[in-house]
């Protein structure tokens, strides 16, 4: 992949909370259309990093460019070009499936006519057509995740950020969820995903591994496995952890 396709550029990015350094001089690039994984244990600084990239947190220092916009000064403009789905995949539980779609499409200013088309398309794809009038509260967890993801990309953002998107479901459901992610990536949406599931890391094009606020490794899963002489990402992670002690 070439340099001119860089959609996220991060240099020496630091986030401090008081004296606590959550993210310590992060530097990496993410290219258009790739699935970029952010891997690490809880508390490694993944969520803080993704929140800075989304404009939810102001970085303490460093350089940050997202979709060609400055991550310090243009945080509101960035929000137009990105989608975001958090671990809580915050749909409105007391609204129906259709009402949630209408709300988020409306917030992103999608014209009514296009919204109607998109709604039908989306409902069909998710096999939710018959459940359109159901409250989100009554949907199974896996469905909620899929709906939340589809809403995060309803406005065709150039990047979508997923913060531990598939917690709490079985591997089969998780696999189905990843089919949606692949589909989005095929359509040219860059996917930035944090996770602590090692099987999910295998699905990514490239993976950055975080530990105690720092990036300790960054490459394709294959290259990492080779470098650390492991058969799975799980093994990479374990060996990395041991070497850092």
């Amino acid at each position, binding site marked *: 992949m070439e340099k001119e396709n860089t959609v996220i550029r991060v240099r020496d990015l630091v986030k401090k909370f008081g004296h606590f350094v959550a993210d310590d001089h992060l530097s990496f690039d993410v290219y258009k259309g790739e699935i970029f994984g952010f891997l690490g244990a809880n508390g490694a600084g993944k969520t803080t990093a993704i929140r800075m990239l989304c404009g939810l*947190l102001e970085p303490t220092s460093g350089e940050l460019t997202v979709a060609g916009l400055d991550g310090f000064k243009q945080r509101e403009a960035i929000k137009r070009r990105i989608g975001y789905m958090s671990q809580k995949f915050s749909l409105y539980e007391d609204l129906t499936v259709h009402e949630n779609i209408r709300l988020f499409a*409306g917030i992103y200013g999608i014209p009514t006519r296009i919204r109607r088309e998109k709604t039908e398309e989306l409902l069909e794809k998710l096999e939710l057509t018959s459940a359109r009038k159901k409250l989100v509260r009554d949907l199974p967890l896996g469905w909620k995740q899929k709906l939340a993801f589809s809403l995060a990309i309803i406005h065709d953002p150039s990047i979508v950020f997923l913060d531990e998107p598939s917690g709490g479901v079985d591997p089969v459901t998780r696999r189905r969820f990843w089919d949606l992610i692949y589909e989005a990536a095929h359509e040219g949406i860059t996917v930035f995903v944090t996770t602590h599931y090692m099987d999910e890391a295998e699905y990514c094009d490239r993976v950055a591994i975080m530990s105690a606020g720092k990036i300790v490794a960054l490459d394709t899963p294959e290259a990492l496995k080779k470098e650390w002489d492991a058969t799975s990402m799980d093994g990479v992670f374990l060996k990395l952890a041991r070497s850092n002690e």
Partner: protein
Amino acid sequence: MKILRYLLQKEFIQIIRNKSMWPIIFVMPIVQMLILVNAATLELKKSDVLVVDQDMSDASRQLVNKLEGNPFFKVIQVNDADFDADDQLLKGKANVVLDIPQNFERDLRRDNKVSLQLRVDAINSMSAELTWSYMNSLIRDYNNNLRASWMGVSKFDPPQQIVVSPRYWYNPTLIYAFYMAPGVMVILVTVVGMFLSAVNLVREKEIGTMEQLNVTPIKKYQFIAAKMIPFLVIALVVLSFGLLIAKLVFNLPFHGNLLVLYGFTTVFLLGVMGLGLFISVVSDTQQQVFFLSYFFLLIFILMSGLFTPVESMPKWAQLLDHLNPLYYMMKVIRNVVLKGSGFFDLKYEFLSMLGYGVVMFSLAVMRYRKTA
């Protein structure tokens, strides 16, 4: 502007779907109006008087009769000099003890002058003062009658007299409910508007949907306005309910213009709801919002002139009251409802409330950070 429409649509659907909201909108105003207006009365209706009559003369019996004939006083008569009247006061069985001394009548005839001892339970100073002033005028009346009958004239006149005749405008029969009902409506409107919107906003923080909205291109003012407008509408519905109950149950007259009242109320709500949302924006949990709003609301209500006139407060409190939106609104609603005051009569109040609203709304918008 379109975004605001979608947000409002969402808020209204959620409110309508929330079952615990309905009793607040429809039952609370009725219950509160009925209980508050009836309970909050300073009209003295009953006072227990213990009369210890040691004279048992014609004159003393006339006084007891006069007391018994007065609906305000419930008389317990005792003739035993050794009776422990103080104990009755301590037990709370009597509010007033009237001692008629031995030789009361004889001394009055002989000395032209006699004194009567009254003891009043004064823990509630307001009631004590009222009781005393009723007693005082009753005794004066009794004194006048007694004097006239002893002197054999129909009426005893002093050399000159000035007749002070009171006229009670806007509420000639001095009905206390006319005073309380508009005030209670203001409280209801404030509680509904301020609490509901503030709790609603912080709830989105607690359940996490706020974060989702924060990564969208929503403008800050759009979000705050979307939290305000639905509850503003609900508060105005509650006001209408209150007015209806006041009319049907208490027969409250309405001399003003409805449009003026709703206009003023809207401007007022902008201020209190702005404050509520500001509190909500700086808080993390419903509990914090609840107690912080309670804290402000309590100060506002106590200083609003709902219970006692603002003029009676110390100077510093009166000055501070200019920061109290409820102070303006209490004045406005009573004047509009009972006197038919119009917009120009109350333009200072209008401008103050408008200023308050703009400042509070801006503060809430400014302090709201679209961050996690």
